């Protein structure tokens, strides 16, 4: 089915949303036609999610009107949106971890027998049919915390379709998927639009917009810049519209000689929370002066691998040596002191004490050392001075070391961690998802520091789901699958297809070729 330009399924007019004094959406107009795939593009914090949350009834607009299929609707809460055929897949999944797939899908729209008793059997059947119809494979009876992120995403889409959604909002749906999964999703979107569904997709990836979207609306700092026909515009121009200047996505990286092995992991086995071997005989060597990228789909043991080598999770068997010294199963403190520092993947859970000030967070690993404390007494002055220095060097905003970290933006939170870890000048820096969810400026900044670390003859272990990041930064790339490194290649020789093939568990490089 092609786009029906006579039917405006969505018309948002003059939408303004203020959070206190801050204007997140500034007089935005958005029109979407039936059968269209419409992309929303903008930097971090541009206001994309806010606009869609308004459309879905999660936020009340400060002013402005919304028309659905030509009728003015006051979308006061998600129920109204659902009734009007709007479904939304949120940037952070809205799934109840302890529930099964079926339970998550039917929640709020339950099929019941008498007296409100759930009819799970019928629901399961319906969902199986639905999943067949749209080619969205899920395991209906699995619990959410047991399934892959890709499947979780399909559950989210099914949730919307199950509610009879004709308009589907997808907020950054590809951020956590493998290239293959992304391809699959693109296909699904096309097939949905063929079946008459209207889709709004938010993404930072220009490639994807080119691939599926018909039209694209660009938002910058809460204001709508323009809506353009995707076929008529080049990626570079889209990027320029988005940030308001020409951007280059290349990372400057000079050649460095790779040095001795500094970190050696031998046949490592680490269990996950369910007591299964998440890391299952993993071996690798990290050299001075290199960035070793670890590519892989979420859930293949990356987290357990990092926690295993940093002492946060017991190592069942295998050996980790740093500079020739066995550091297997030492305490986190001992491991930090032997020279490994980490940028953790979950910055809010692991990386920061949100209720602490910036200054307090800066000394998380060193609070007991001179000059931050003497004989168990904190030395507030030197802590402050240290924090002020780092805030300045890493351009952390606001420039206030007494600010609570929880009140900082995501990018600045990440900079606090980076500043802290790099200031330790570790031999090995483990960077897990260092730029997840950050805008272009912040990403550039963090990449610069990772490379600087490598240039200084230290080693960086980079773990990321973002293939572009891995390929741009790494000197060598290891692919992790099912808790093992299945192959390692030179970054220059790596291409997206091969990596994607390996990440999906396809086999070794040779087989990929």
């Amino acid at each position: 089915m092609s786009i029906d330009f006579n039917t405006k399924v969505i018309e948002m007019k003059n939408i303004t949303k203020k959070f206190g004094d801050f204007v997140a959406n500034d007089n935005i107009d958005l029109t979407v036609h039936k059968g269209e795939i419409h992309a929303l593009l903008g930097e971090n914090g541009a206001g994309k999610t806010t606009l869609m949350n308004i459309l879905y009834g999660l936020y009340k607009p400060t002013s402005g009107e919304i028309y659905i299929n030509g009728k003015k609707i006051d979308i006061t809460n998600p129920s109204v949106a659902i009734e009007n055929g709007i479904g939304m897949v949120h940037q952070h999944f809205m799934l109840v971890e302890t529930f099964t797939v079926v339970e998550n899908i039917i929640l709020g729209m339950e099929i019941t027998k008498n007296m409100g008793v759930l009819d799970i059997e019928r629901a399961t059947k319906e969902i199986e049919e639905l999943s067949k119809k749209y080619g969205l494979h899920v395991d209906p009876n699995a619990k959410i915390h047991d399934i892959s992120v890709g499947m979780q995403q399909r559950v989210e889409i099914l949730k919307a379709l199950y509610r009879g959604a004709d308009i589907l909002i997808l907020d950054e749906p590809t951020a956590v998927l493998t290239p293959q999964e992304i391809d699959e999703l693109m296909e699904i979107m096309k097939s949905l639009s063929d079946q008459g569904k209207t889709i709004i997709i938010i993404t930072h990836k220009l490639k994807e917009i080119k691939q599926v979207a018909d039209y694209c609306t660009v938002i910058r700092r809460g204001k709508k810049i323009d809506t353009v026909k995707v076929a008529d515009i080049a990626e570079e121009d889209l990027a320029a519209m988005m940030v308001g200047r020409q951007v280059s996505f290349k990372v400057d990286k000079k050649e460095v000689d790779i040095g001795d092995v500094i970190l050696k992991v031998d046949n490592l086995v680490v269990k996950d929370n369910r007591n299964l071997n998440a890391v299952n005989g993993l071996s690798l060597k990290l050299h001075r002066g290199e960035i070793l990228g670890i590519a892989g789909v979420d859930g293949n043991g990356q987290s357990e691998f990092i926690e295993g080598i940093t002492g946060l999770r017991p190592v069942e068997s295998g050996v980790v040596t740093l500079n020739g010294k066995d550091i297997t199963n030492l305490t986190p403190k001992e491991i930090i002191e032997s020279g490994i520092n980490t940028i953790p993947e979950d910055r809010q859970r692991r990386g920061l004490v949100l209720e602490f000030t910036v200054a307090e967070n800066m000394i998380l690993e060193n609070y007991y050392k001179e000059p931050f404390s003497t004989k168990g007494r904190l030395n507030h002055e030197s802590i402050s001075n240290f924090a002020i220095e780092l805030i300045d060097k890493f351009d952390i905003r606001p420039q206030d070391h007494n600010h609570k970290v929880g009140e900082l933006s995501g990018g600045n939170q990440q900079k606090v961690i980076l500043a802290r870890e790099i200031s330790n000048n570790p031999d090995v820096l483990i960077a897990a998802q260092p730029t997840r969810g950050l805008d272009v400026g912040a990403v550039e900044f963090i990449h610069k520091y990772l490379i600087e670390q490598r240039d200084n003859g230290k080693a960086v272990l980079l773990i990321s789901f973002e293939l572009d990041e891995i390929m741009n930064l790494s000197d060598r790339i290891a692919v992790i699958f099912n808790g093992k490194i299945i192959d390692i290649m030179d970054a220059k020789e790596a291409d997206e297809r091969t990596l994607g093939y390996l990440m999906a568990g396809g086999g070794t490089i040779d087989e990929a070729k």
Partner: protein
Amino acid sequence: MKRNRFIMIGISILLGLIVGAIVLLIAGFNPLEAYGVMIKGVFGSPKYISWTIIRSTPLILTGISVAFAFRTGLFNIGAEGQFIIGSLVATLVGYFVKLPPIIHPIVALLAGALAGALWAGFAGLLKAKFGINEVITTIMLNWIALYFSNFMVFTKAFKRPNKDASHRILESASINVLGKWKTSEAGKAFLVEHKFWKEFLNPPVNYGFIIAILVAMLIWYILKHTTLGYQLRAVGFNKDAAEYGGIDVKKNIVVSMMIAGALSGLAGATQVLGVSKETAILAIMEGYGFDGIAVSLISGNNPIGCIPAALLFGALKYGGSKLQPAIGAPFEVINIIIGIIVFFIAMPKLVEMIISYREKKRGGEVESIK
């Protein structure tokens, strides 16, 4: 922020008193008269002030105990049991151990604190080692402490003949202010001359209050200015981050519970050495720990804040005890008032709304005048 908190507490207290007034009215008492009795009952004489302070002293310490645990992410419902154990051990040391004055009370206080620390540390250990929720274990340990104390009081060497209580502690272990001097000839002569001091010193005024204030400052200092406090707070706010930063989370849970327990144990010890001088058979929980929870919550889990909060609590309870003989109003109204105060303190959002409504109203009036 800080200012707002004070205003909020003030408004909560006001609301509590208003509800209390309504309850009194319904039962046919004049609330103004009742509050008058309470105010006079607390401030009417130097000795009433002494009594209020004496009444508040253990609550400052159990309040800090609960607050400290909260600050480090633990809910210490067990202050009650730790208090009991602290009292018991302080009595044992106060009676059986023979030491010179000054040293004797110090040893007894430390012993009480240590006993409380070990008692609570056990709950901390179970949490750290087996992940057992400290709420359950401390509830269970409260009852075990109660029965254990009763058991100990009944041992032959410890029980006072013809009394369901232990022997009294030796005079050398007392922490009363000028205890001996008060009854000496010189003391008596002085006090006859100086009415205020006679009144003020009439109740068993003891160093417990000063100890409690010093401890509040110490705990505030530990939390704010030491690496130990830094670690404990980090664990309390986010134990995953603390663990990642190399802090031994399990050890800190045990240490935190031990410090909390030491504070409650100390509360029990000061009570014995300063006021009760003995451990009596306990028929029921006396409520020092449970009141401590309320004190801690009123103070916003701030150790320094526990001092005024406990004084408020002590004043309400001590002043409230005078309602009955004066005007015949039942004491329960005090518990209702305390409950309402705590209830409003739980709802800063509501109280803020009330404040901003009033400000708006005032603003509106100003505008209409223009």
